[in-house]
Structures are given as structure tokens and as C-alpha cells.
């Protein structure tokens, strides 16, 4: 039953219809609690896309989701389900904080590469242990990465409370990073080319790193030998072994790349926005990465679009909670519906659509 639909229908039409369905159902829920869905949509759109300030937040969140979404997507290609983005991003934050606080950095141009490296290394290291357990011992990576999220949170807690907290402070957080680590925001960057952009929004140069990561992941998966081996292993382990591809190597390398991508998220949040390390700086972005990868069909470009959508939902939802009586929890419901329709209920839309295309094709012939 392949090739029933043209590719554009598979890539664009199905996610779009799923999205519309999710929004329709959300509208029903909003009506049910006595609010006006149209007003809610208007408020979300203005709140997330209506000004450069709004865009600044939407893209800031989207940057996080691009990194975690790519992390999940890369692992998916090797049929590994990395649920540990949360923990890997947490450890990435630790790496960024250690680097930023280690030296009196003179300028962000020097600090950024070091922080990127640290974030990637710490994230990769946190993925390496579950990867090794999977490759060598067969311990299921879903279980181990979930466990490592909790361990990661505990490690961060310990580090903040016992090691990195400034003396006398009651707050489990590091001191502020030195000014030389301050990253340029989109306001600073766009000012260079003369485009006005909100000064208050947190979107920063990490967004550009995320875009570069999309391109690099695309090259890795579809243009390199390693990517070829990752995809081959993901489709069929016996075939990969037949071809002389070593599973241990593929599992380890895939998870290192995946963990590094998740860790890079910290450049955006810890270094670009908070400029210090606090507890729970990841705020669930690791999990949203799973939905982003599912919706983006594990393709970097799809991940980019899905990440921007979820950035919109995140920011629009925050606005909604701020200005209306619609509770914050309802935003989670809307997000959940989007995940449900685009991820889990994919076939619900796909099957009727395939039948439709089939009927169309039959009529033509």
C-alpha cells in the first residue's frame, strides 16, 4: 500500500489536517469552559506572532525545541528512543555554567565556542552511559534514559546546593555569569543589518546555532557514511550486521550526537537568557522534543517547522493564561491534543486520505 499519496500530501497535508482537528477539539474545550475560542485564537496569535517582542519569545522557545527535537530525531533514525533529552539538557547547562564561571571571559566570541563545546560534551556524556548499557548489555534505552533524567536532576541539585551556590546565598543557583559571556540577542544581531527588533525578548544567537544544527543534522543523516549506517541500523539490525556495520559503534555514536544536541539547548537558556544556572532550567523542553520529532517526521526541516509551532503554542499559551480566565492547564491540554493528533493518531487522518487519493486516481484512469 505504498506510494498511494503524493509526497506533498504525506509531508504537508496530513500534519496540517491533524493540526486543524486538534485546534477544533481545543475550541470545543474552550467553549465548554465558557470562553470564546475565536478570541482565544486572536490572543494567541497576537501574543506569539503579533510583535517583534512576541516573535522574540516564540523563537526563543522554538530554539530549545529545535535542539531537543533534533536530538530525538537523530536517535529515531537508529530506532533508538531517547527520552533523556531533559537530563542531557540539564547536564549541558551544568557544562555551560562551569565554563562561563571558570574564566573572566573577555568577550562572548571566545566564550560562545567554549560553552557550545561544553554543552555538547556534557550532554553527550550523559547520553553515553545509557547508550553503552544498551549497546553492550541490552538494557533498554527508554528505561535508562528516563532514569538518567532523574539522576541528572539530582546531580544538578547537588551541584547547585553544595558546590556552585555563592556563599551566603539562599537560592540554589549559581552567581551571574561574567559580562564577557553575554550573548548577542536577536535585537543586537538584527540591528547590525538595520532591522528593528524588540530589546526585551530573550531570543538570541543560539537560534542561529539551532538553524546551523538543522543543516548539519541533515548532512549527517543523508550525506555521510555514519548517517547511512545509522539509518541502515535503524531499519534492520540483521542487515546492518550483514553489511559489516557494528551495532555497538552505531548505537554509541548516535546517542553521543543525540545527547550533544540536547545539551546544546543550554546555550540558549542558561547562557543566552538566564545568564546563571538555576534549578529546572530545562522546563520540560526535553519531552516536547519528542513531540517535535514525531511531528517533524524526524526530518530536520520538519523539526524546524514543528519547533516553531510549539514555540508559538508555548508563547501564545502563556499570553492566554496571563490575560484571560483560561487556566494555564488548558494550554497543556491544547499542546497534548496537538501531540495526540500529529503523533499518536496519525493513521486516523492517513487512512481516509489514502482512500480519497485512491478513489481520485481510479477515476482518472
Amino acid at each position, binding site marked *: 500500500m505504498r506510494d*498511494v499519496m503524493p509526497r506533498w500530501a504525506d509531508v504537508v497535508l496530513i500534519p496540517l489536517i491533524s493540526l486543524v482537528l486538534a485546534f477544533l477539539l481545543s475550541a470545543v474545550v474552550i467553549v465548554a469552559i465558557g470562553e470564546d475560542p475565536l478570541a482565544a485564537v486572536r490572543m494567541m496569535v497576537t501574543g506569539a506572532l503579533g510583535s517583534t517582542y512576541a516573535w522574540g519569545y516564540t523563537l526563543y522557545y522554538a530554539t530549545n525545541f529545535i535542539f531537543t527535537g533534533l536530538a530525538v530525531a537523530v536517535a529515531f533514525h537508529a530506532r533508538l528512543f531517547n527520552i533523556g533529552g531533559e537530563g542531557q539538557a540539564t547536564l549541558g547547562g551544568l557544562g555551560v555554567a562551569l565554563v562561563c564561571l571558570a574564566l573572566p571571559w573577555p568577550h562572548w566570541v571566545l566564550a560562545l565556542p567554549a560553552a557550545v563545546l561544553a554543552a555538547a560534551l556534557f550532554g553527550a556524556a550523559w547520553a553515553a552511559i545509557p547508550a553503552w548499557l544498551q549497546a553492550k548489555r541490552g538494557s533498554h534505552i527508554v528505561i535508562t534514559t528516563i532514569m538518567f533524567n532523574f539522576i541528572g536532576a539530582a546531580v544538578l541539585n547537588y551541584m547547585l546546593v553544595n558546590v556552585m551556590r555563592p556563599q551566603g546565598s539562599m537560592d540554589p543557583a549559581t552567581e551571574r555569569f561574567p559580562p564577557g559571556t553575554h550573548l548577542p540577542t536577536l535585537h543586537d544581531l538584527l540591528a547590525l543589518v538595520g532591522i528593528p527588533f524588540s530589546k526585551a525578548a530573550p531570543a538570541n544567537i543560539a537560534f542561529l546555532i539551532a538553524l546551523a544544527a538543522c543543516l548539519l543534522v541533515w548532512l549527517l543523516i543523508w550525506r555521510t557514511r555514519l548517517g547511512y549506517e545509522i539509518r541502515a541500523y535503524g*531499519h534492520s539490525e540483521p542487515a546492518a*550486521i*550483514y553489511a559489516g556495520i557494528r551495532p555497538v559503534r552505531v548505537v554509541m555514536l548516535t546517542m553521543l550526537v543525540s545527547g550533544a544536541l540536547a545539551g546544546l539547548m543550554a546555550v540558549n537558556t542558561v547562557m543566552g537568557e538566564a545568564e546563571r544556572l538555576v534549578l529546572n532550567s530545562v522546563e520540560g523542553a526535553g519531552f516536547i522534543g519528542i513531540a517535535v520529532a514525531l511531528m517533524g517526521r524526524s526530518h530536520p526541516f520538519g523539526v524546524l517547522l514543528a519547533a516553531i509551532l510549539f514555540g508559538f503554542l508555548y508563547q501564545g499559551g502563556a499570553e492566554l493564561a496571563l490575560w484571560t480566565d483560561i487556566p494555564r492547564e488548558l494550554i497543556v491540554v491544547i499542546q497534548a491534543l496537538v501531540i495526540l493528533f500529529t503523533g499518536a493518531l496519525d493513521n486516523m487522518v492517513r487512512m481516509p486520505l489514502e482512500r480519497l487519493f485512491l478513489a481520485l486516481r481510479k477515476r482518472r484512469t
Partner: protein
Amino acid sequence: MAGAEAPAAGRHPDAAPAIELRGISKAFGTVQANRDISLRVMPGTIHGIVGENGAGKSTLMSILYGFYKADAGEILVGGRRVTIPDSQAAIRAGIGMVFQHFKLVEPFTVLENVILGVEEGRLLKPALARARDTLQRLARDYELNVDPDARIEDLGVGMRQRVELLKALYRQADILILDEPTGVLTPTEADHLFRILKNLKSEGKTIILITHKLREIMAITDTVSVMRRGEMTATLETARTSPEQLAELMVGRKVLLRLDKKPATPDQTILEIENLRVTDDDGVERLKGVSLSVRAGEILGIAGVAGNGQSQLLEVLGGITPATGNVRVKGAEIDLTGRHSDGRSRRARGIAHVPEDRQREGLIMDFFAWENLVFGYHHDPACQRNRALMDNAAIRARAAEQMARFDVRPPDPDLAARNFSGGNQQKIVLAREIERNPDLLLVGQPTRGVDIGAIEFIHQRILDLRDAGSAVLLVSVELEEILSLSDRIAVMFDGRLMGERRPDQTDETELGLMMTGMRTEVA
């Protein structure tokens, strides 16, 4: 004899057909699996259905057994119209099915499997007693001897098949459908099965035999139907046809059933194996000291019933399974256990490998044809654009040429492997492995699930490679294939080689005996 369009050797020429299909059609999406199929099978006859893979045989039988619902057409059993919505209805109509892949509960005994689903009552004991009596009677009537208390997991494939037959007979089937029943049997077991089928026929049972082996059709059936591309192209009386005619009807063109094979001119020894031993993950020794050698320009065929160690032999040589013993290729020792004992290192030593299961191992079914055509050779310098990236354009261009040379249809490198037919998938694997001009070619089941038209082509390519001076190690469960391709034949049983024969000095009977572990005098 009955009417011209339904010749039958049955004993009731005037009786209604045991089973009759009228205008059966079934489509899956755009694929018309069955198109307007009509068929009459008289009671007390054996009717063969032949056709290539994808001709629609299995779909038709699945409709008969209630797995699929036909889009159009009707089914008559014993002259009465029936609808068969599920397998229970098929059983009630007196239809029994013996599948290619047995549907038995392995830890259960034969008796328990037989009554499964027809226990009739809350307690098992009366049903078991009833079944034991029936089984004894069936064993006596039809040579269907099976120990009723044996567990399925302890039985061989031949026995398991008998249990399937018993299950159908216990449910009082009058019409038995057998799907590729001899695929897993030794020649002796197959002969026994045919005796059973003849006994069943003489008791008035009607048998429909689905097979791709024309020899079996000729040996046992009364009438035969040929299917091609979803249509029933002919129904013939077996006595008045020939394998050549059937093959032509199946493929739609003339087919050479005999190979154009020159005598071998063996040169220096390429492969030497001494005392090869393999123990699998369950601690069972699968190869128990195998020694053999293959020279350049010859084909060594390994015959044997599936599961006697042939697969392990290929896997060891292909770098998939570690082993102990000595293997030399062109005189140089091969590392059988080290960290770098893998498929890649074997390819570097000039060993190409066409695996037994192309869909599981030989191909990535979701990869494009061009991606599959470098699978295993993707480290080759010719595949790289620079140090980091692969040269996909060059790979695709070479793939298109290879597909043209190997007559892969359609010759479209941008089609995923799963969209090709079995024969064309195999041609993709062969193109990849043969075009490397290997010193040693390992081939497992080269024509399993491959249509007749492609078999001829594949065999010719293997012979061409031999004539070009490569050594070929061929593993196949098809004796005919072993006999027609090999220059020497070694028979494998229970992880050991039982001896070697030349194809012109042996026959299927002797090889069949050796395959069951019986020692024969060295010729």
C-alpha cells in the same frame, strides 16, 4: 471425464464439483490481486495451482478460507452457494487448510493441538479421549502416524505438517488446501506426504495443492490451473501437459528449464576450511568440525535440509557469526573471532555474500535501490565525494547502470527496495555482489521466492562468474538447483558434511538419503 473446460479424473464425473469459484475478484488498493477467477474442482481429485510469486494464489486461497472477503464472485461447495466470512465458516463448509507456516502451539502435545478450538465442553478429558480414537483411525487409514502425546517442539517439520493435516481431518474437512507443502521437506518426507495425499484422494477427499514446483504438479495432480498476474490463465489435465508448457503459461514466454553450462575448469584453491565449529547462543553446536575447499572457477553446492548448519557456514564466512577453526582465503588466514571479524573485513578480502534472506539481511527494504546497491560497500573510495560526505550522485549513476545490466525491472534507482518483486530484489543483491568481481562468492538460496523467469537469469549470472574465475559456495535447499548448478556437491546433516558427490554421478534419491544422515558408499 467431465466437460472440456473442467477435465477431471474423479470417480464421480456427474457429481457437482467439490468446490467451484465463479468470477472471484479482489483488489488491494490499485493492485488487482484476483481478477474474475473461475475454477471447478471435482470431488476425489488432486488439483494443482501453479503461478509465480504475486500471481494471486495465496489471495485466492485466503478468500476460500475466509481471511479476505472477495470484492465480487461466488463460492459453491458441493453445488451449494456458501459465504465464508471467517475461518470458522470455512471449517463448517468442510474446508481445511495446511499453511506454509504452521500454526501450532509448540509447548502443547499433538493431541492438545488437534482439539484446540473444538474442545466441545468445559472439561478436556472427553475431548482428548475422542481425539485419541480418531487419530488412531486416521493413522491407520492414511499412513498418518504421529505420536499423539509428543510435544510439537520436539517434532520435525515433516511431523508437524502431519499434525496440521490431522487437525484439518479431525474437523472433518473434505476439501484440503495445502500451501507449498514440500518447501521444508526432504525428498523422502515429500514422497511420504504424497502417499498420504493419494490415500486421502482414494477416500474421496478433494485436495488443492499450491506449489511452484512443476515436478510435483506432474507427479501427483489430476488437473492443474495456472495463475498469472491475478488471472487464471489455463486449467489443464495434468496428463496432457508438460513442465515446459506450464512454465510458459506461468511466465508468459518461453523459459529454458535447462541451463547452458560448460564444464568447469577449476584453478588454484581459493577457500580452505578446516575443522570449523560454531556454537550458538543457546549453547547448541551448529557446526561440528566442517572441512572443505573451493577452487577458482568451480561451484561447490551444499545440499541439506534447512537448519542443519548451512546457514551458520555462510554466516561464519560472511563475518556475521564468530567460530573456531581455520579458514584461509587465497592462502591467507582469516580472523574468525577478533574485534574486526565482520562483514566489512570479509569484503576487503574479496568475499562477496548473497545472504539467504534478502529481505532480512541483504537489503534495507525502505532504502532506495541505489542506496541498496552500495550496501556493505559504502566505505568504498569510489562512493565518497570528500572526506566527510558520500557522493550520492555518482552512486546513483552507477546504480542505474548496474540495474540495466542485471535487467532489474523497473530500472528505477529511486524506487524503494520493497517496491520490487522478489526476483528483482534478488537481482539487486546479485548485481551488488557479483559486480565486485569477488574471489569468492557466497550464495544462499539464490532463487527462493523468485519467479521462474528470473531464476534462469540468476543461475546464468552465477555460472558466468564461475567461468570468469571466481570460486562459488552455493547453499540451497532446492536439490534441483544444487544438481544443475554445482560442479561438486557436499551434503550437510546435523552440522557435519556427509560426503561429496559429482552431480553427474548422483541423483536426488541418494542425496536425499544423505540429507537425512544416512551414510552411503562413496561412489
